[in-house]
């Protein structure tokens, strides 16, 4: 089999050929006719009633639409019999009244009898095919979700009702989703994970999840969710705690009534864990305790339509598939999001997929935001310093950097994470802060946490005064005119609208090289000025300005995001850009990649009188190099016994300004202005030197050291 595998493996053509040889032959003749109940060898017959045609010579494979209406008379009798039996059992076992009422109310709608393990809402008289899952999901679920908020006729008293539960009545889409049973749950989850809104339709999706799982989150968690976002976050937390919740209830001092009622409240997701609990007790050979005796009835209550059983083992054997399905639903709920990284200057895109672990699925909307903008998310992780910052998640990004400096994509991505988190919070996701970490070649290169403390003024989403095309056209004309005598050329300008409604102006410019850009860097201010004028005078509503300036050889020169909505700017600039908006130190000859390395390098540079290096290691200085040099030569600082005792990472609002405190002890000898030589000792616990990350390199802050 190794033929041709030495370099690039089996060739594509070989693989194709092999698959064609492996695929079993299929006879097509007569199949179409048999699908229609027509004798393949004979003349065609008329189709069966209502277009439903049974095949000849094969079992029935079709199915009716899911049944949610009243059962047939025969079936009703059987239901009543079984219902009565269950009532007797429940009463005998001392179930709480509420649980009993809930149980009976549910039975009326969904209890079915079948020779197959069934789910809520399954058609009882279709034993060969449980009411379906994936096909219905693929074909119908999205249609049904879209149809959920269908209004009632204008003459209906419920027309325009503000009570969402009014819309559950006479709602065929809702009924059909519920009838899909547990098979619908992953699809409903996926919908909420990626598109949940505060609208009525998504509210009803949440209600469908509760209905299918027979769990009222308000009742069991005391959590009155107001919309799908708040439901979704709490629902995931709730399911994550399910094994613990079950154990806590069952291990509590056994009170028949309360225990049974509480387990029933947990809903169907509790079933696998109730079974596991029973298994554990069984292993302890303590099967005589009251709770174990009650478990089979509990399980039957939680999964209406499940096969009745006298013992847990029997229930487990008869309903193994349902138990597995529920356990998978609770535990294996990760979400995959795929996308392409944004197109860089050489137009290379990279496809990636991020799998979001179950504990973070409530943040999958945040990932969707980022992926839609080409940000390469590697994974979501637990946010550091959660005790300090509250609820949040750490977004791990794939660094585009190939050396010690951040790539421009990295810098801009940090802002996009912050922005996406703001949007998620505005969409009512429970998030107080967001962490950002970069991985490149498998190692974390930086970490920061930022509180989500901003919001976007709704006025940004008001009807704009210009269309996207008009805004782009005016901006192009005016920016080009503004740059007429500048070394910068505007090569492309677009105005697009993000899914959240924000208008983004994206401009690509070229310049001969970094020196030319540095000399005229302030010319770029024309972009902001033009956008400001369009917003002020024409209500263009451009909320974000993204500018990418590259040299004619394609090397990035200055990339930036001006976020007018969040009132912040983020940029990356080439090393040679020293003029303009941010005072930059000279180029580094060293590359301190950690806070500790930064301070140690600077102290060593001062001791060695390597003044250019020492100066370059400041994040910013209020002094020109000449003045600074004069001061330091006169002071002639010399450090002794300099030691680092630890680093505490902090953060600021802007994600690309990661801040840390490095605790140090030392002795420093220096000359006072009068010429007197003196020494100062900083003993333990030491003092904190504040350092800041700029363009991927740590640098010492000037003022805190003074």
């Amino acid at each position, binding site marked *: 089999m190794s033929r041709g595998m030495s370099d690039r493996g089996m060739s594509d053509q070989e693989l194709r050929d092999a698959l064609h040889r*492996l695929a079993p032959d299929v006879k097509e003749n007569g199949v179409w006719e048999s699908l229609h109940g027509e004798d393949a060898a004979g003349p065609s017959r008329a189709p069966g009633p209502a277009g439903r045609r049974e095949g000849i010579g094969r079992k029935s494979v079709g199915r009716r639409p899911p049944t949610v209406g009243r059962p047939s008379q025969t079936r009703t009798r059987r239901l009543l019999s079984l219902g009565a039996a269950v009532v007797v059992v429940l009463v005998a076992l001392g179930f709480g009244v509420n649980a009993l009422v809930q149980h009976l109310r549910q039975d009326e709608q969904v209890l079915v009898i079948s020779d197959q393990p069934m789910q809520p809402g399954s058609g009882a008289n279709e034993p060969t095919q449980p009411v379906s899952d994936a096909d219905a999901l693929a074909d119908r679920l999205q249609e049904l979700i879209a149809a959920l908020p269908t209004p009632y006729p204008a003459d209906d008293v419920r027309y325009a009702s503000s009570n969402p539960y009014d819309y559950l009545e006479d709602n065929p889409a809702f009924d059909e989703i519920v009838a899909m049973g547990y098979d619908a749950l992953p699809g409903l989850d996926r919908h909420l994970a990626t598109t949940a809104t505060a609208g009525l339709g998504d509210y009803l999706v949440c209600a469908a999840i509760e209905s299918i799982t027979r769990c009222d989150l308000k009742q069991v968690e005391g959590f009155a969710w107001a919309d799908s976002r708040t439901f979704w976050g709490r629902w995931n937390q709730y399911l994550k705690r399910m094994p613990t919740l079950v154990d806590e209830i069952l291990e509590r001092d056994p009170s028949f009534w309360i225990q049974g009622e509480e387990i029933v409240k947990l809903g169907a997701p509790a079933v696998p864990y109730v079974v596991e609990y029973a298994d554990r007790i069984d292993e302890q050979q303590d099967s005589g305790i009251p709770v174990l005796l009650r478990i089979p009835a509990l399980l039957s209550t939680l999964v209406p339509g499940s096969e009745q059983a006298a013992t847990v083992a029997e229930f487990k054997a008869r309903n193994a598939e349902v138990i597995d399905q529920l356990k998978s639903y609770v535990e294996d709920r990760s979400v995959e999001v795929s996308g392409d990284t944004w197109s860089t200057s050489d137009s290379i895109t990279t496809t990636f997929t991020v799998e979001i672990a179950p504990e973070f699925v409530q943040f999958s909307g945040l990932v969707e935001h980022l992926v839609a903008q080409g940000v390469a998310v590697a994974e979501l992780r637990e946010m550091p310093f959660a005790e300090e910052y509250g609820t949040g998640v750490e977004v791990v990004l794939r660094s585009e950097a190939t050396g010690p400096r951040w790539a421009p994509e990295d810098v801009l991505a940090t802002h996009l994470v912050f922005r996406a988190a703001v949007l998620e919070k505005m969409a009512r996701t429970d998030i107080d802060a967001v962490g950002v970490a970069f991985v490149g070649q498998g190692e974390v290169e930086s970490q920061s946490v930022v509180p989500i403390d901003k919001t976007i003024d709704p006025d940004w989403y008001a009807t704009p005064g210009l269309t996207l095309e008009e805004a782009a056209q005016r901006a192009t004309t005016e920016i080009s005119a503004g740059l007429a005598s500048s070394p910068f050329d505007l090569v492309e300008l677009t105005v697009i609208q993000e899914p959240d409604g924000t208008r983004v102006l994206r401009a690509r410019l070229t310049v001969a090289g970094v020196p030319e850009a540095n000399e005229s860097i302030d010319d770029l201010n024309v972009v902001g000025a033009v956008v400001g004028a369009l917003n002020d005078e024409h209500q263009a509503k451009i909320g974000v300005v993204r500018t990418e300036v590259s040299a004619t050889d394609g090397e990035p020169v200055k990339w930036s995001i001006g976020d007018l909505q969040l009132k912040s700017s983020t940029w990356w600039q080439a090393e040679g850009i020293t003029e303009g908006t941010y005072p930059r130190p000279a180029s580094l000859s060293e590359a301190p990649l950690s806070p500790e390395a930064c301070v140690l390098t600077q102290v060593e540079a001062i001791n060695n009188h390597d003044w250019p290096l020492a100066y370059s290691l400041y994040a910013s200085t209020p002094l020109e190099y000449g003045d600074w040099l004069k001061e330091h030569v006169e002071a002639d600082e010399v450090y002794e016994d300099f030691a680092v005792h630890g680093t505490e990472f902090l953060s600021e609002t802007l994600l690309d300004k990661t801040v840390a405190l490095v605790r140090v002890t030392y002795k420093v000898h220096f000359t006072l202005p009068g010429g007197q030589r003196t020494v100062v000792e900083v003993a333990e616990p030491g003092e904190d030197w504040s350092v800041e990350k700029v363009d991927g390199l740590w640098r010492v802050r000037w003022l805190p050291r003074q």
Partner: protein
Amino acid sequence: MGNERRDRDMEQLGLDAIGGTGVSRALAAASAADASSPESLFRAHYRTLVRSLALISGGDSETAADAVGDAFLQLEQNWDRISTYDDPAAWIRRVALNRLSNRRRSLARRAGALLRLQSQRDETPQGIRATDLALKDELGRLPLKQRTAVVLFYFADLSVAEVAEAMSITEGAVNQHLHRARETLRKRLEVDQ
């Protein structure tokens, strides 16, 4: 399905653009020819689809035929709606795959399928090579999504976009599945040597 698009998809994957194989030509011709009735779609796609699903399900052509038959029944029942779609064949593929997935979930059916598989293993198809059997085993060990993507792309000759639509995933995810599948097959088959 345009060969131009196929070639572009394959370039993205770093694969050889091989031009139209017999199947791709046939499918392209069928797609272009007549999608005006359920029967014409059946004639154009049934056989390839059943064979594809049989490969995905480890050789269980009966289950595959049932799943595809279901899809065509649904097609006919909903023809008024589906005939308005840009690509009814894509709808059939998706439904058939979902049907297959449903069937695979049933323990009883799975047991039956295993029995059928067992009996089929005794029947070595004519013209099959020893190397093909190794590939078949390794194909069966691939995760379902990877296997599905490989079969639809390499056997059914669908474009990445069409595979994505059939599997209800993004094109990026399809590329990932294909890439991983190829890597896995390459490594395993090398080890087998």
